[in-house]
């Protein structure tokens, strides 16, 4: 049984005409114990909402439907009381913005100690010691970065280490990292990714890595799912998907990566158009309007179909593996 099992997940907002409008529309993801999964897509494709739905912290007004289970236990209908026992203890999250994710008026030590004190039944003193050890583990040596520091005394990368310490402090089974490196400079990004990878290996956590950056996914997750306009359009082993994507959108994403071989000053490749707003999605395949291969068949939504290697695509006109990398 999968550790985190998401089947046909929908996140709905009440539409203007009363009919619920799906922001996330039938997403299916499975995360095995100790496994890693990447979730990639442009801003607004619903990847963060998927993560927030999984941990039960959607903004007010949004509702979750479909199946969402941790180790077989349903989380959609679970009472808030039960979810509070799971959040931070078994399911933890690293957020995107280290500058705002920490409380500016509390010390980093107290913010890390809060979870363990609550979930692990530690005394105040034990929780403080535990927080010190966790901060040390994420690279904040207590002799240089005592737990009595406040967030504003740290750099962005150091703050993100604190956010990671908060997430892993209770030894969760699932770690959801929502764009954990997006707000950081490139050199820091690499070190934070290494830290997350090391922690995941060492503690046997399952990782759901969310990013718009295929490079980040390639470094952290052996499997990935590509989301577009609230749906998964392609998924499979990361190496296969990146080497020979089936979906025109995945190809577009790969083609949009800036590479060293480009002539300086040459325009960057981009997918024409923008992700349609949830109330403007065309019927059928949502990528139709931006897709070079679309035709009338695309008015009917394609199902996600897997090949023999576990690479699945939702497209009526997938690329041939022989097309090679874009």
């Amino acid at each position, binding site marked *: 049984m999968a550790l985190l099992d998401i089947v046909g997940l929908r996140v709905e907002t009440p539409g203007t005409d009363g009919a619920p409008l799906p922001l996330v529309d039938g997403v299916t993801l499975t995360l095995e114990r100790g496994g890693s999964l990447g979730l990639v897509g442009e801003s607004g494709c619903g990847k963060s909402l998927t993560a927030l739905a999984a941990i039960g912290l959607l903004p007010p007004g949004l509702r979750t439907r479909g199946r969402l289970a941790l180790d077989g236990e349903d989380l959609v209908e679970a009472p808030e009381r039960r979810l509070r026992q799971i959040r931070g203890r078994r399911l933890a999250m690293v957020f995107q913005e280290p500058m705002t994710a920490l409380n*500016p008026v509390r010390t980093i030590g107290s913010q890390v100690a809060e979870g363990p004190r609550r979930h692990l039944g530690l005394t105040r003193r034990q929780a403080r010691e535990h927080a010190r050890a966790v901060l040390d583990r994420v690279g904040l040596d207590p002799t240089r970065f005592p737990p009595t520091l406040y967030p504003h005394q740290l750099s962005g990368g150091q703050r993100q280490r604190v956010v990671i310490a908060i997430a892993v402090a209770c030894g969760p089974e699932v770690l959801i990292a929502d764009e954990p490196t997006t707000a950081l400079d490139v050199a820091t990004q690499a070190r934070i990714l290494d830290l997350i990878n090391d922690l995941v290996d060492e503690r046997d956590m399952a990782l759901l890595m969310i990013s718009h950056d295929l490079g980040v996914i390639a470094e952290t997750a052996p499997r990935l799912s590509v989301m577009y306009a609230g749906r998964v359009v392609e998924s499979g082993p990361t190496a296969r998907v990146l080497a020979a994507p089936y979906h025109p959108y995945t190809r577009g994403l790969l083609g949009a990566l800036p590479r060293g071989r480009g002539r300086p000053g040459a325009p960057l490749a981009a997918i024409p158009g923008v992700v349609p707003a949830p109330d403007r999605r065309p019927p059928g395949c949502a990528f139709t309007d931006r897709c070079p291969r679309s035709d009338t068949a695309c008015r009917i939504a394609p199902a996600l179909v897997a090949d023999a290697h576990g690479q699945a695509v939702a497209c009526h006109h997938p690329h041939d593996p022989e097309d090679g990398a874009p």
Partner: protein
Amino acid sequence: MAWFLARRAVALVLTLWAASLVVFVVLEVLPGDPALLILGVGAREDTLAALRESMGLDQPAWARYLNWVGGLLTGHMANSLTYDVPVPALLGPRLAVSGPLALLALTLAVALALPLGVLAAARRGRATDVTVMGVSQLGVAVPNFWLGLLLVLVFAVGLRWLPSGGFPGWEAGLGPALAALILPALALALPQAAILARVTRSAVLEVLGEDYMRTARAKGLSHAEALWHHGLRNAMIPLVTIMGLQFSFLLAGTIIIETVFTLPGIGRLMFQAIGQRDLVVVRDLVVLLAATVGVVNFLVDVSYALLDPRLRHGRAGVADE
């Protein structure tokens, strides 16, 4: 922290100095001869001159300014023109009325406003929120003297629960003295509480949308726990500013409210001194009120530093990642 406090203390001293200069200059350019006021228009010229000399009015302005400020600093202030007693002797018993009145009003305002504001924010858009906001809108619009009269009509004239005005003095016992202060304190507090409740609501709403609240929830805290452990202290930072500002309005309000309730306090003394052109009392009182406001602002700055560590130490990071 020490550096921060030192800077604030210097600013406080400079403000008071500026206030004393402004008061002195304004009263200096106002027409009117205190000697003539005391002796009346029929007084003989040599009597007037003698009185001017005894009051020091014949000295140049700078000397009189230094004398006055020196007196303020050492407590040897001049005599009131109308009562002919030193100003400190006038102030003492009146401070014993106005001080407790202002404290009571402030306490009532905060005790009402903070819970209501937090409640309204937590129940945003629901009936509780709409009710609290509606009532507070009314409270903001109502002038405090009118509210004072209304309170007298209901609780003193109608229900006969509390006295309509006057002050029995603290020697009459704590009960009667406090009873005399409740209605005026309410009249002062309710409009302030209305404003403070609205500010509290918006401060809490702002905090509720912060990322660190989501981080707290992701640790397994409930809404209420996240608000209590992470939200309130952040929300207090704008609130303390407003409370400091409100204290000045409270002082101004006592002038009217003490007159409405015939309380022998500082506000009423100020009102009478202006009416009687008792300029000695007026200028000392203005400096006293300025000093009170200055000290309150100083306390506000200190509480900022206590609430927000970013003000306590510089921004410099320990090391770069």
